[in-house]
């Protein structure tokens, strides 16, 4: 595949092995700027592993290109952020929502210049908390927020630095329908402002309106991509029926998607 100017993430022949067992095999994916891509598949199909591999958090082989550059270069750009499924750790010391969100500004690149940009950061923090509706809770300990509010705090941290590629690991899991709608609205506003979203999910229901592309992981044993393309109803039907390994039985959809034989 050729890397175009709008190609945010390109992987080719990506493999991941854990303790000698290959869990991701020959994964080739393209993510274009300004789009929302849903990574779908059953539990254990390697969706989160894919995200961790492209971020360099776990060892992998094959080609990973961010913004057309080599793998690790994305770290220096500050353009990529991650929304984990849950708050990563219950910290022993209370951390306020503002401190939690503001921590996204911390990087070796601004180690010595962090004191110079306080006004800009305060403005960005105010803006990010406003967008997710947590401005009135900026001083509260983040662990004291409800589950839905904690997700919004994670969203705020992802967008506060102006990162234009946000990888989200099941951002709607375990959240009630009202909060799901709020989170999808925030995701939609991110897309409107030009961000690229890559979202690990089990189902598309709540975010069907904002997803441009589906990458479907599946396969028996080692996982690979069985479909990449528009979220066609047929594919979703099969996916929701938890039978991604039968995807080859489907007709090739009229969309731009491509069906891969297992």
């Amino acid at each position, binding site marked *: 595949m050729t890397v175009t100017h709008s190609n945010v993430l390109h992987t080719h022949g990506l493999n991941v092995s854990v303790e000698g067992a290959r869990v991701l095999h020959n994964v080739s994916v393209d993510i274009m700027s300004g789009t929302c891509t849903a990574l779908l598949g059953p539990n254990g199909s390697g969706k989160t592993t894919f995200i*961790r591999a492209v*971020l*360099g*958090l776990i060892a992998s082989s094959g080609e990973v290109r961010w913004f057309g550059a080599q793998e690790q270069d*994305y*770290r*220096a750009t*500050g353009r*990529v*952020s*991650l929304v*984990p499924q849950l*708050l*990563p*750790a219950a*910290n*022993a*010391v*209370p*951390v*306020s929502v*503002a*401190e*939690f969100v503001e*921590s*996204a500004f*911390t*990087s*070796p*690149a601004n*180690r*010595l210049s*962090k004191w110079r940009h306080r006004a800009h950061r305060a403005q960005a923090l105010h803006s990010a908390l406003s967008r997710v509706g947590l401005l009135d809770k900026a*001083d*509260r*300990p983040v662990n004291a927020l409800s589950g839905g509010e904690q997700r919004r705090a994670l969203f705020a*941290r992802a967008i506060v630095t102006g990162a234009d590629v946000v990888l989200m690991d099941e951002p709607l899991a375990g959240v009630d329908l009202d909060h799901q709608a709020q989170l999808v609205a925030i995701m939609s506003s991110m897309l409107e402002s030009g961000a690229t979203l890559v979202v690990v999910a089990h189902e598309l229901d709540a975010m069907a309106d904002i997803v441009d592309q589906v990458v479907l992981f599946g396969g028996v044993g080692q996982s690979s991509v069985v479909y990449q393309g528009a979220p066609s109803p047929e594919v979703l039907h099969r996916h929701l029926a938890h039978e991604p390994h039968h995807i080859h039985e489907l007709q090739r959809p009229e969309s731009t998607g491509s069906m891969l034989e297992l």
Partner: protein
Amino acid sequence: MLSYDFMQRALIAAMVVGLVAPVIGVHLVQRRLALLGDGMGHVALTGVGISFLLQTTPIPTALVVAVAGSLLIELIRVRSRAAGDLALALLFYGGIAGGVLLSSLAGRTRPVSLSSYLFGAVSTVTRNDLTVLIITSVAALALLAVFGAEMFALSIDSDSAAIRGIRVQLMGALLSALAAVTVVIGMRIVGLLLVSAIMIVPVAASQQVARSFRGTMMGAVVIGLVCCVSGVTAGYYFSVPPGPAIVLLALVIFAVAAVVGARARSSAAARRSRRFAESDVS
């Protein structure tokens, strides 16, 4: 009290420890490494033993050995299959055994005493000791000013920290080394056996009532300063050992803060319940 030079030095040293120890301690507590300081104290004991044997100045020698030990702990934790607490335990045992053995060997040729390092001897702080303490403390605080934000970000979410280019292992090693430095700074004031307490207890007290990391740190510094100065003062007026007085005072403050914090949290929960009930009715 202040007319005596040794008490002036003791109070300055106490203030330095009261300021620095909680600032490092809040990062240790945040990363659930509250017992790291204890491990470092045991390792520093080997440094004191080496200084007895080589007849060098104890504080710099203990500093070098404790920092080396802290880096070894990180190495064991990261590179081997040993878990963090196991690595710490290994250093605990090795450190105290080495300290006692080396002191015993040194004692064959001249009289040496470990007790002033185990339990503190604030009245014997020399001008040179004080100079080393202040320089070391300023260096530790400067490092924290530069790298503290990265340590904080790492403690919140190591994955997100890593994708912003923060070097996870380097920050872990730096925090361990800073803990080792703090242990040696506090060695003469509260002693190696209790020095970890002045890093941890003020933080534990402060976090009972604080709502943020920054608030916890500032509260812990105030508690640390009050306890250290009060403990040394009590030691002078009541002829009690300052180290235990400092730690017990900090524990009393912790107990009071725990009660106050629990009451504040239950009041806040009650207010929230009332608000929900009122919103349901309306």
